[in-house]
């Protein structure tokens, strides 16, 4: 290890480092000569100045070969092609689990509704008369008990109605098949209507 310079050494170093002997002031020359000769000082300066031009221009430097850039994943470097594969796989996965719903719905909405049959037979019979029975019991009875009795009554009526509902003949299936012509000319529907009216009349 080099020991640190004392004040005199540091001053001497600064002078040798910066000035030729001729550039020194008389006081500096006196200071230098108390430590070593003028010739010794000049030799040090020559050594320094010659060092500057000691090596001549060197040979040509070949061009730099820059390696291909690498990408970094979690602080670890991976080749560029692996990074591209990773990105492509991510996009493919995203598209597969996230199909575009909006566009599909719009297509469906724009599609015109096409009917395969020109006539649809409804299998439910709606009667044109509803009989309602009013409860004429004493008005002092509690409203809650009268309401439950009304409900029971209506339920009974509904069961009667359902029991009276006709079991439609199998001909309905034939009727629902596309005939390609109007109902009014269809003999099957005519037979159905007739049977319906006959059962009503009974």
């Amino acid at each position: 290890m080099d020991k640190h310079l004392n004040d005199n050494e540091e001053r001497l170093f600064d002078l040798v480092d910066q000035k030729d002997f001729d550039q020194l002031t008389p006081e500096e020359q006196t200071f230098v000569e108390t430590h070593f000769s003028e010739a010794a000082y000049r030799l040090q300066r020559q050594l320094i100045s010659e060092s500057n031009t000691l090596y001549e221009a060197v040979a040509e430097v070949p061009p730099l070969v820059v390696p291909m850039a690498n990408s970094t994943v979690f602080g670890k470097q991976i080749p560029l092609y692996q990074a591209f594969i990773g990105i492509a796989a991510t996009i493919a996965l995203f598209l597969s689990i996230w199909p575009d719903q909006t566009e599909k719905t719009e297509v469906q909405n724009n599609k015109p509704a096409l009917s395969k049959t020109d006539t649809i037979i409804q299998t439910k019979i709606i009667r044109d008369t509803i009989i309602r029975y009013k409860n004429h019991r004493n008005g002092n009875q509690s409203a809650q008990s009268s309401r439950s009795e009304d409900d029971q009554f209506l339920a009974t009526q509904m069961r009667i109605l359902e029991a009276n509902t006709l079991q439609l003949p199998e001909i309905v299936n034939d009727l629902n098949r596309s005939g390609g012509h109007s109902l009014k000319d269809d003999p099957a529907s005519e037979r159905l209507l007739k049977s319906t009216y006959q059962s009503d009349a009974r």
Partner: protein
Amino acid sequence: MGIFRKHITQLTDEELMVEVINHHSSSAITELHRRYSKKLLGYFIKMLQRDADTANDFVQELFLRILEKKHLYDPEKKFYTWLFTIASNMCKTAYRKSPIVALSTDGYELNRHTVDGDDLAEKNHFKELLKESLEHLEHHHKTVFVLRYMEQFSLNEIAEITETSLGTVKSRLFYATKKMTELLKAFDPTYESTFFKLN
């Protein structure tokens, strides 16, 4: 803002280094190589006493290290000194692996004659001896001497490159010069025994 973008040759070293860090710009690193490769080549030849081919390998390796260690660069600091810090560390590692064998001091015996400053042969001889005396220095002395008097770095820059204090740099330079002068004393006919009586 592309039209206001400076040409690559107009960017400072530090701006180029930012390009290298952010975009792994090959043109930026090539420009830095163009600016400093020759100087670095000279530095490696002086420090390692190797041929130009070996020194070229060191230059190439240095720029690859810059690409690898680019995240360690502080844009607030001068690129030039950072570059030479890496180069100096590379030389230190190479020296540890295979120390440069110092030439025999016997070579200086034949130089006991006076120097005629005008004599070109003598001057060339002085230069040869200077090169040899440089090789006799310890590695840390040689580093500061080369950086100061051959590469013209300031004392503060050398302190930064060698990661030491200013006082240490001055001390190393003082003793390096002292040792070299002792080896070259044959060129001083009036050499006095008081030359280095300070210590």
